[in-house]
C-alpha cells in the first residue's frame, strides 16, 4: 500500500476531474453543444473560496452554496443559450467562458484578479472526492434511466424526431444546462478546497479542452464514459513524464484519433461491441437449441 500512497494526489485529481467531466457529459448527452463547464466551475470555485476565506463559512455549507450558485448561473445562461443550436451554441458558451475569465481577472475587489484566492482550507481529500463522484454518478445514472434521460437521447440522435414525439427541446436543453452548472459548481468548489488556491487562468480554454477530451474519449452516452476519460487523461501525463514537453502533442493527437477512429468513445464502443456479441451468441445458442430439439 505504501507505494500507492504516493499516488494519492493523483487519485484525488482524477476523481475531481471526473466530477468536472460529468458536467461536460450531461450537455453532450442531451445534444447540447456546450463548452461552458469551465465557466460554471469558475463560479462555483470562486463562490466557495470567497465564502471560506473571507467569511469563514464551513466548507460543507460553501460547497452547497457553490452547487446552487452554479445551477442558478447555468439556468440564467440557458435562457439565451437554449435558443441556439450547433456551432452557435458552442461559440456562445465559449464566449461565456471568456466573459467569466475576464471578470475574474478584472474584478479585483472580489476575486483578487490574477493573483487568485490563496490559503483556502484543505477540506477535500480522497474520501470526499470519491463520495462526490459516486453521488453525482448515481444521480446522473438515475436521471439517464428516467423520461428525462430518454428525452436527452432522442434529442441528441435526432431533434426533429424528438419534437414530433412531443419532447420539448428547450426544456431538456434547460435541464441539461442547470445540471451542468450545478455539477460544475460542485467540481469547482471541491477543486478549490483540495488545492489551497485558485487562479482565473485555471478555468480558461485549457480546462475546456481537457473536459471535452475526457468526454469524447470516454463516451457520451454511458455514465462511465466521463469516468474512463478522466482516468485516462489524468493518468496519461504521469505515464508520459519523460516526454513532459510533448504532453500537449500527445493529448491533441489522442483527441483527433479518438474522434476519427472511435467516434463514440471507449466506453460506448466497448458496450456496443459487448451487446452485439451477446446478441449473436444468444442467436447462435437459440439456433443450436432449435437444431437439437
Amino acid at each position: 500500500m505504501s507505494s500507492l500512497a504516493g499516488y494519492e494526489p493523483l487519485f484525488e485529481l482524477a476523481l475531481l476531474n471526473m466530477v468536472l467531466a460529468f458536467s461536460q457529459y450531461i450537455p453532450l448527452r442531451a445534444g447540447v453543444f456546450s463548452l461552458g463547464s469551465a465557466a460554471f466551475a469558475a463560479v462555483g470555485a470562486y463562490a466557495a473560496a470567497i465564502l471560506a476565506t473571507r467569511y469563514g463559512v464551513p466548507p460543507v455549507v460553501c460547497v452547497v452554496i457553490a452547487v446552487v450558485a452554479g445551477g442558478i448561473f447555468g439556468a440564467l445562461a440557458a435562457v439565451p443559450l437554449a435558443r441556439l443550436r450547433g456551432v452557435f451554441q458552442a461559440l456562445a458558451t465559449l464566449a461565456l467562458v471568456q466573459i467569466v475569465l475576464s471578470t475574474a481577472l478584472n474584478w479585483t475587489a472580489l476575486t483578487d484578479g490574477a493573483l487568485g484566492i490563496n490559503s483556502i482550507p484543505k477540506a477535500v481529500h480522497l474520501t470526499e472526492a470519491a463520495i462526490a463522484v459516486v453521488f453525482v454518478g448515481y444521480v446522473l445514472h438515475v436521471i439517464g434511466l428516467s423520461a428525462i434521460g430518454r428525452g436527452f437521447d432522442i434529442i441528441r440522435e435526432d431533434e426533429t424526431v424528438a419534437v414530433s414525439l412531443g419532447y420539448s427541446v428547450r426544456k431538456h436543453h434547460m435541464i441539461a444546462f442547470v445540471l451542468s452548472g450545478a455539477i460544475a459548481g460542485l467540481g469547482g468548489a471541491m477543486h478549490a478546497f483540495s488545492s489551497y488556491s485558485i487562479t482565473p487562468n485555471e478555468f480558461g480554454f485549457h480546462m475546456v479542452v481537457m473536459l471535452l477530451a475526457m468526454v469524447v474519449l470516454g463516451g457520451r452516452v454511458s455514465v462511465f464514459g466521463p469516468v474512463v476519460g478522466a482516468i485516462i487523461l489524468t493518468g496519461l501525463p504521469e505515464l508520459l513524464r519523460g516526454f513532459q514537453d510533448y504532453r500537449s502533442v500527445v493529448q491533441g493527437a489522442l483527441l483527433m484519433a479518438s474522434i476519427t477512429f472511435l467516434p463514440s468513445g471507449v466506453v460506448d464502443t466497448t458496450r456496443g461491441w459487448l451487446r452485439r456479441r451477446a446478441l449473436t451468441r444468444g442467436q447462435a445458442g437459440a439456433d443450436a437449441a432449435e437444431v437439437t430439439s
Partner: protein
Amino acid sequence: MLAQQLLNGVVVGSVYGLFALGFTLLFGVNHIMNMAHGAVFMWGAFAGLFAATMLDLPFIAALAIGALAGGLLSVLLDWVAFRPLRKRKAPEFSAIVSSIGANLILLSLAQQMTATRVMRFPFDTFPIRIYEVFGLRVQLLQLVIIGIVILMVVGLVWYLQRTSAGRQIRTVAYSESTSRLLGINPFSVNFQVFFLSGALAGVAGVLIGLVFNSVHFMMGEPLLLRAFVVIILGGLGSIPGALVAGLLIGIVQVLTVSYLSAGLADVVVFSLLFLVLLARPTGLFGSVHGGAARVARQ
C-alpha cells in the same frame, strides 16, 4: 484623439476581417468550424518572420511566404483532421473536436520550437515613415495594411464571383450533392478553399506580427476568439458580414482600451456577441440559409 483611435481601430479591424474571412469561407463552403485557424495564422506569421530574419527577404516576399505557409498548412489540416470525418459524414461536432486537437498539437510544437520566446521582425523589414494628415499621425505601415486588405478582399471576391473555379466553389457551398451531379471535383474545390482560407490567415499573421511587432506561439488564440465574435456578428459564411463586423470589433476594442480600460475590452467584445445572439440567433447579417443555422424549433 478620437479620430486617431478610429484610424487605429480600422487598421486592426481590417486585419481581423481578413482573418475572419478565411474562417467564414471554410464554414460557408464546408460547414467546418476550424478551431485550428488561429494556429495557421500563427505559423503563417512564423514563416514570414523566418523569411525576413534567416533568409533576409524583403517585406513583400515575407508576406508571400507567410501566405504560402498558411495555405499549405491549412490544406494539410484538411487531409489529416477533416477529410476522414467528412468521408464518414460525421456531425459538425466532430470537426470542432478534431480541430481543437490539431490546434493543441500545432501550438505545442511552436512553443517547443521557439522555447516560449516572443520574437520580433528585424528593424528594417518595413520602413517607418509617419505622415501628418489633418493632424492625424498616419504610419506608412497602416496605409499599406489597409491597401493589402482591400487588394486581397477584392481578389477573393473576383475569384469567387468571376472565375470558373469560383463558380465551382459557390456551387459546392450551395449544395454538395448538386455539385457532384454537375461533375465538379470536390477534391480540387476543398484544396482551393482550404488553401485560400489558410493563405488569408497567413497574411493576417504577418501583418499583425508587424503591427504589434511581436510574434509568439499564443498570438493566434485571442484572434480566434475575436473571429468567433466577428463571424457571429457578420453571419456565418457571409463575406461582406465578416469585413464589416471585423472593422466594428476592431474599433470597439480600440475605443474600449483607450477610453475605459484594457481589461474590459474582452468583456465588452464578448458581451456584444452574447447580446447579438440573444436578439438575432443567426447574427446581424446572417440568413437562415446562408449560415446553415438551425434556429430553435419550438
